């Protein structure tokens, strides 16, 4: 089987501090990680490979040259090889332009049986890249998947939706986006890390993908970010001190009054 896993390098979240004045997130630009859900996607691909010897797992990412780090991480976690899509013409891609580049790379990689992606990233957080790429490749998009089992040329999946779990059988090829429930990614062994650190990856630009530069990046992105601003975190806070019995009563009353204003509790008497 040929399995392709879409991975994205995202800003790390371990050393985040908040600028107390502006509320902006301060972080170290060299602190990047593999998007958490993509770890789950890679782990699932590795599981499939265990059950189906001969399976080739390819990690695919579009990003800056430093995204090789994410590919190495993916290989430490079970991918056999990786491809980096990187070129200045890709800069400023929205989800449509990102998906178009990924779809072109999938076509170039040859017949694929299964594509796995995260349900969403922790930075852009759109959750659009998986289903958009599937649509461009004319593959079924099977989203929010929490269980995946291979059955011949089909997969049987469970989708986690608002009010329950949907079970589907899907004929391959297909694209699946995974949620956290699907597995528990184990920590790769040191040996695999050492091995992955030595791996190198082909780097493809628009030319290798058969795309015109105008079909990529900002030029090919139908959306435009026209304004970015920090949400105002701090609100004007009404403070009540629950000191002593009287303070406690007054505080509880203040909460109840606010719940009434918000129509959580009936107004008037009760």
């Amino acid at each position, binding site marked *: 089987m040929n399995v392709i896993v879409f991975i994205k390098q995202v800003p790390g979240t371990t050393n985040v501090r908040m600028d107390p004045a502006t509320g902006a997130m301060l972080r170290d630009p060299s602190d990047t990680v593999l998007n958490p859900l993509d770890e789950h996607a890679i782990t699932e691909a590795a599981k499939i490979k265990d059950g189906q010897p001969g399976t080739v797992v390819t990690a695919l990412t579009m990003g800056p040259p430093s995204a090789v780090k994410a590919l190495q991480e993916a290989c430490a976690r079970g991918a056999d090889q990786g491809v980096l899509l990187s070129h200045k013409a890709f800069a400023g891609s929205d989800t449509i332009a990102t998906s178009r580049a990924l779809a072109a790379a999938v076509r170039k990689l040859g017949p694929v049986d299964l594509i796995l992606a995260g349900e969403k990233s922790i930075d852009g957080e759109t959750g659009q890249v998986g289903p958009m790429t599937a649509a461009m490749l004319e593959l079924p998009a099977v989203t929010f998947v929490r269980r995946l089992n291979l059955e011949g040329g089909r997969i049987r999946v469970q989708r986690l939706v608002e009010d329950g779990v949907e079970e589907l059988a899907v004929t391959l090829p*297909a694209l699946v986006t995974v949620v956290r429930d699907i597995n528990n990614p184990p920590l790769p062994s040191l040996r695999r890390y050492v091995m992955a650190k030595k791996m190198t990856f082909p780097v493809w630009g628009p030319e290798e993908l058969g795309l015109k530069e105008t079909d990529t990046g900002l030029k090919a992105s139908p*959306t435009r970010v026209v304004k970015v601003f920090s*949400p105002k975190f701090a609100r004007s806070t009404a403070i009540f001190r629950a000191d002593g019995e009287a303070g406690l009563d007054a505080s509880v009353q203040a909460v*109840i009054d606010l719940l009434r204003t918000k129509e959580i509790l009936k107004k008037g008497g009760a």
Partner: protein
Amino acid sequence: MEQNSNGIMVLAEVRGGAIHPVTREMVAWGRKLAGQFSRPVTCVIIGIDPDDPEDLIRYGADRVLSVNPGFTGNSPATPTAGLFVDVIREERPAIVIAPATTSGRTLMPIAAARLNTGLTADCTDLAIDPKDGLLLQTRPAIGGNVMATIKTPNTLPQMATVRPRSIRPLQPDSARRGQVLVKTYEMPDSWPEQLLSFIRDERKEINLEEAEIVVTGGKGMKTKENFALLEDLAAALGAGLGATRAAVEAGWAPFTRQVGLTGKTVAPKVYIAAGVSGKIQHLAGMITSETIIAVNEDPEAQMVKVADLAVIGDAPAVVEKLTKALIHLKNKRKGGA
């Protein structure tokens, strides 16, 4: 841009064979955007025969378009998205919005890719730019740390998924009149995806993401026994129960209750945080809540700063007292009526 396409299309949320109430919120957004332009708001329902399509007209739609796939049974994403694209191509709306639910977040990107147009995810605000008439789509990203306003300037339709509870439904108006249309397609009945079963989540507990009110406990609840007090408070309020990662790690609540960057994102009308410090990774999951109430012994806690109302004191004691007061009110109401 096409001159004749000025309508606003709203995709109905179909769940369990019925129209989900979040659809009324989407219709309210449609009306708001139609504003002074008197643009028609069309609500599209795919795959079911709605019991009461006029309901959506009372809530603000001008047209209700019911799309019948021509076969019975549940339609998976591929045929549903296919019908959706066909309807958009025929109707040529300027704007298409859908709720940012598992269904909307699946169908909209498929449709946008096939129509080669832009899609903005999970918006919390929509407006029309008075300068150029384009849709201004505002959404939180990067764990609620930035807000971005996005436009789709050169392609149509302008598409957006919209976070549930980002607007209130309009007051229903029984005098409103509109059109109810039915379109029947002859879709084949075989697709790569086949729905085998649906297991409804029968647990009585309230779905965190959909709750109008969420009560969350953190490390400041001190013990597992104290944390359990929050269950009583949640029950008294009809609230969803959340937890911080620290509380989950302490074993006081299962991971499914975790709110934050690596847990769930909620945006209820009221969020009550008891003994929660308000670290950025927690705020990421709840900062867009309409009203925030913090209970914390530390007046300098970040959660207190982001709250509309803060009670400075011992969280278990405040929670217990509040629960008692609410139960007392409830009993009084029952007794009085």
